[in-house]
């Protein structure tokens, strides 16, 4: 049987959801039988492949590169999962949206006020979006997996349900935050 192609992506987030994925501990070994991790921060493939079955996307969309990346991912993925609170709601990443001119204000604080030498905004880096967005404001999301981070058990449950061809039901199981 061909293994299910799974990808995990990490946008603007803290990696906690990926860590929670790894917190499945020895169950990862069982999973290795069923899935093939075709793209992930923990594997060495640099370009997002075509025809991915399931993609877990952690983090909010906060800069132009991520926006572009997410659109590519969407095109190449059958089932896109918003993985964790940042991807689902914006969470902490989106707290900067509460400021009027958020991009300027956050950059000013970090790269001018709090710096001793060569104060400047980094320019040769992806431009920040005016607001950080949860995924579904940018692309279509097929499944939401909230939590900060979602627990390893929940991830395991969802993944196994999907692998077995069922739609996982989150009612009463998940929790924001």
């Amino acid at each position: 049987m061909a293994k299910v192609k799974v990808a995990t992506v990490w946008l603007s987030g803290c990696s906690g959801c990926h860590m929670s994925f790894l917190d499945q501990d020895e169950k990862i070994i069982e999973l290795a039988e069923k899935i093939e991790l075709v793209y992930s921060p923990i594997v060495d493939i640099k370009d997002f492949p075509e025809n991915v079955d399931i993609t877990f996307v952690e983090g909010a969309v906060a800069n132009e590169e991520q926006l572009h990346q997410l659109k590519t991912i969407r095109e190449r993925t059958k089932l896109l999962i918003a993985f964790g609170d940042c991807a689902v709601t914006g969470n902490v990443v989106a707290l900067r949206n509460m400021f009027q001119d958020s991009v300027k204000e956050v950059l000013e604080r970090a790269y001018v006020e709090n710096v001793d030498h060569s104060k400047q905004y980094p320019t040769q880096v992806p431009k920040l979006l005016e607001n950080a967005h949860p995924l579904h404001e940018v692309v279509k999301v097929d499944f939401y997996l909230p939590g900060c981070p979602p627990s390893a058990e929940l991830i395991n449950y969802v993944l196994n349900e999907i692998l077995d061809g069922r739609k996982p039901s989150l009612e009463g199981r998940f929790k924001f935050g």
Partner: protein
Amino acid sequence: MSERTVKLVIDGREVFAKPTDTILKAAKDNGIYIPTLCYLEGLTAYGGCRLCVVEVKGNPKLMTSCTTPVSNNMEVITNSPRLNKYRKQIIELLLAERTHTCSVCVANGSCELQELATRFGVDHTSVSRNWKRFEIDMTHERFVLDHNRCILCTRCIRVCDEIEGVHVLDVKRRGKDSSIVIDLDEPWAASYSCTSCGKCSAVCPVGAIYVKLKPLSETKKKELPEFVVERRRR
């Protein structure tokens, strides 16, 4: 105390209630769950959150079960796809209305809104979230008022008015601009009517009013003691 003399049908089950009961009370007494948020037993029913709406046979409108009294032979449906859809939508709207960032909230884990989201499977908000920033009032030595998390259920206002009897709090402005106000829009510490009793923090269903430096899981008693409720009923 009056007898349970009113017979009604809730979700196909025949139940008996006192004539003074509301649908919510009758359902609760019979172990039927109806979600609530602005309702707190012992305080005047408010009817604002609309989560407890039910269908009453013969009435084209949805009725809030916390305010509608029972009547004989009433047929009530508390749980239908339509109702649950509306409930989900309401929870979504509440989550989107202000910045509910559960992960960094004092109420995380003991928040009624969060719990409802879990129960009804509101795993995201289909409407975009607001990011308006409200000043947090931390002037009081013991309590904090964080408007960013307020859902305007007005439990705090009612408990302050009806139980403590002071009415320090009210709502200012209206519509989407409504927010809780202390005296004449004073910093809390400058309120001259506040008795610092803390009832408001005890009934807040979310993390909007809380005791400084304490997570809600340690401080909250969201339900009023039975004898208080009983006294209020009289």
